[in-house]
């Protein structure tokens, strides 16, 4: 997926939410977008997912993308299998309903993210971390070339964040290109191969996470001083 000099301006807004944005998201790799609130991360994700069209520049994607927003409306109590099987929608004829084989794939995807024992549970009865895993299982059965996640570790404790991180690594290992936004620097370090830093709709820098996430770069990004301290980090395996 290539963002080539992309700009986007929301209707009625005086300035671009994103401008001159260029980035490559490669298959089998995880790319993290970092930046303060309002820096254009969600806009970049929307452009990548295709539900926003760039005002200028181009977004080229050689395959479909699955999109996982930060939170999802849960108006109905679908079972985990029912919810995951929605991921099969792009592979089914328009008026078809999922077959037993589709449900078997959903169950297998739930097992892959460690949720096999919760397959029959209602999604409204899950914890935040469990729900995130179910959504990742849905992305797995969607078999999209790219998976785009908006703040996947938001509000999760370190253990759940590590579980989500492992599931995301599994998505990349299965061949998908992953683009995610996060404020969790430890999560980005542990989970992502590359990071792109966005400030005020502009790309400040891009590179391998362990090289780019350092005090001076973060100070330029967030406008506050950082110092290096040793912090225990969960092992993603």
């Amino acid at each position, binding site marked *: 997926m290539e963002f080539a000099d992309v700009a986007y301006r929301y209707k009625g807004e005086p300035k671009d939410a994103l401008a001159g944005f260029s980035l490559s998201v490669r298959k089998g790799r995880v790319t993290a977008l970092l930046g303060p609130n309002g820096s254009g991360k969600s806009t970049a994700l*929307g452009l990548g*997912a*295709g*539900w926003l069209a760039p005002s200028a520049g181009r977004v080229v994607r050689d395959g*479909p*993308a*699955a*999109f*996982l*927003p930060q939170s*999802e*409306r*849960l*108006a*109905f*109590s*679908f*079972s985990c299998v*029912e919810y995951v*099987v*929605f*991921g099969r*929608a*792009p592979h089914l004829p*328009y*008026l*078809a*309903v*999922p077959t*037993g084989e589709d*449900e078997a794939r959903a169950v297998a995807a739930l097992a892959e993210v460690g949720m096999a024992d919760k397959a029959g549970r*209602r999604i*409204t009865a899950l914890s935040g971390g469990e729900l995130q895993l179910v959504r990742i299982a849905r992305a797995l059965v*969607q078999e*999209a070339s790219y998976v*785009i996640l908006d703040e996947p570790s938001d509000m999760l404790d370190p253990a759940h964040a590590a579980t989500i991180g492992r599931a995301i690594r599994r998505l990349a290992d299965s061949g998908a290109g992953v683009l995610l936004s996060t404020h969790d620097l430890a999560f980005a370090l542990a989970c992502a191969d590359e990071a792109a830093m966005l400030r005020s709709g502009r790309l400040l820098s891009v590179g391998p996470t362990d090289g780019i996430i350092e005090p001076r770069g973060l100070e330029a990004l967030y406008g506050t001083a950082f110092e290096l301290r040793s912090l225990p980090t969960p092992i993603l395996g």
Partner: protein
Amino acid sequence: MSRAGRRAALAAAAIALVLAVVGALLFGRYPSPGFTDPRSLFSDDLAARLMVLVRLPRVLSALLLGAALGASGAAMQFVFANPLVDAGFLGVSQGASFGAALAMILGGGSFWLFGSAFCFSILALVMSVMMASRIRFGGAVLRLILSGMAVSAFFSALVALIKYGADPLSTLPEITYWLMGGLSGANWRSLSIAAPIAVGSVGLLVAMRWRIALLSLDEATAASLGARPALERAVVLGASAAGVAAVTAMAGVVAWVGLIVPHLARLAFGGDGSPTVPGSALLGAFFVVVCDALSRGLFQGELPLGVTTSLVGTIAFFALLMSRRVHVERG
């Protein structure tokens, strides 16, 4: 619930519906109150004619009415991602009420009453959708809900105005009785006008049952799953409203079926996915066939169908809410 379990539950509901239809055909107050002995149809010419010319079109109308309201209610709840809306939510029922009241005050016959009720209910839908597109805040669903409420209130006010000016000895009782809903005037002619639209509506909604469930997801999520939410929502709303408009024009406003039946279907058939819309059509048909039989056969004078469905529906609704089986939204 397993796939086999869901299929078995749907088959059981279909069998229950067939039994209810047969029971309703044999239930009434002629030749004597209660159930008619089927053998008497061969010996009593009047009973046979009553069966073919009165009860059969009426029971089929009840079946169609319940199926359309149930399927449309389930579809609307998915599309609005709100389990507490029903088929009349976009002003469709109130538009039909106004159209019927207008036809009555202008002295039109039953064909004009049907046409006027149908046209005004579709007009109400169009007004709701157009107003929603002009509202400048909220997401697509919130805008539709707000505009639907406003359009419903608008047509309710117009109905009140017509009732206020109607002749209290002739037109006012006629309007009031129609607004309570009922199938006392159902016959083959009214059925033949409403049936093609209602059957088409239910058929389309049942065919789209899984896509409709998918529309309850976030717009961006549904789009990334290959759906075209705006277009598909318009198709589902149009089909639902047309079905509801047709049966409401035929039978008046029959409340609560579209709200309560989808909840019962979720409980009966498990989960919230593809069985909900066809299950709601089956249970809606069963519910209205039974309520209509009770309305016309329990007492010497007929109870309005809308009163029976509301009484039974509200009791079931409270029972459901108190049993904590209605999952509204994550806290």
